[in-house]
């Protein structure tokens, strides 16, 4: 803590209230991003819940058909990767 590093530290100014309006505006932007992130998280959770609900309401055959389709797609993707190498 006793190093002569003050000069470097001064390059980052942590004095508050130099430009109150800009400082508040910057905070507002950060806060809006947080609000947005929170809302998106809720949306994602909602979607997942809906998906689970939807799957539950399908008949056994429909579910299996969907799984088969999904597996088929995965397989294709894997083959695609192989060719790239």
């Amino acid at each position: 803590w006793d190093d002569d590093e003050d000069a470097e530290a001064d390059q980052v100014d942590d004095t508050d209230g130099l430009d109150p309006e800009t400082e508040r505006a910057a905070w507002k932007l950060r806060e809006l991003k947080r609000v947005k992130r929170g809302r998106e998280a809720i949306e994602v959770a909602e979607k997942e819940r809906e998906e689970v609900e939807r799957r539950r309401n399908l008949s056994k055959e429909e579910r299996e058909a969907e799984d088969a389709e999904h597996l088929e797609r995965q397989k294709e993707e894997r083959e695609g990767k192989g060719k790239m190498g």
Partner: protein
Amino acid sequence: MSHRADAKRMLDDRGGYAGPTIHGINPAHLLDKPVLDRVVDSYYWKEQCFAINEETLCDRAVDMTYFGGTYGQQKPTPFVCLCLKLLQLMPERDIILEYLHQTEFKYLTALAAFYVRLTFEPAEDVYTTLEPLLGDYRKLRRRTRDGGYSLTYIDQFVDDLLTKDRICATILPRLTQRTQLEDDGKLEERESPLGAELDEIDQDSDDSSVMQINGNGVERDGSIISD
């Protein structure tokens, strides 16, 4: 009873720790082992953190001009050293809240916030204690790992504490996600300090989305958008 001083017992890693615990473990272990070792070996710890209490700790805390974990050759910042001291002292809740809410020394606030995140439980208590600080946009100087400095803000730091797993060279204890606590009815939805302003912004963006759907190409002030 041990013949060793309390400080020694807390830092004795041969097992058989019998002192008070946080989250069921020796509080010193809330810091990562390598950082803990660096702190205990540092001059700052040995000279400035020796025989201080909750009150004299403030004298050290107000001298802080930056926060961070370790930098350069893994040199610990006074911030983590004082954090270990707090873990050792385990001040009463009221004292920590006093550190947190005093408005004169922002680095003391940051230190208290870090301590709250490390030690408070249950999770909803961490959220309710720290979230008010998301409205505090005072600037903080942060020591980065390479030894440089960067600028951040109290609200940003607190947000990181609530959402990230690792900060200031420390792996934070697991914290249940906010949405989960809301679903369980343990926590109310967070009210943004923007309050009414946020509603206005929502209103505006609703208007603009309606405009996009209508696709009439007219801006809100009535001028035609030219392609």
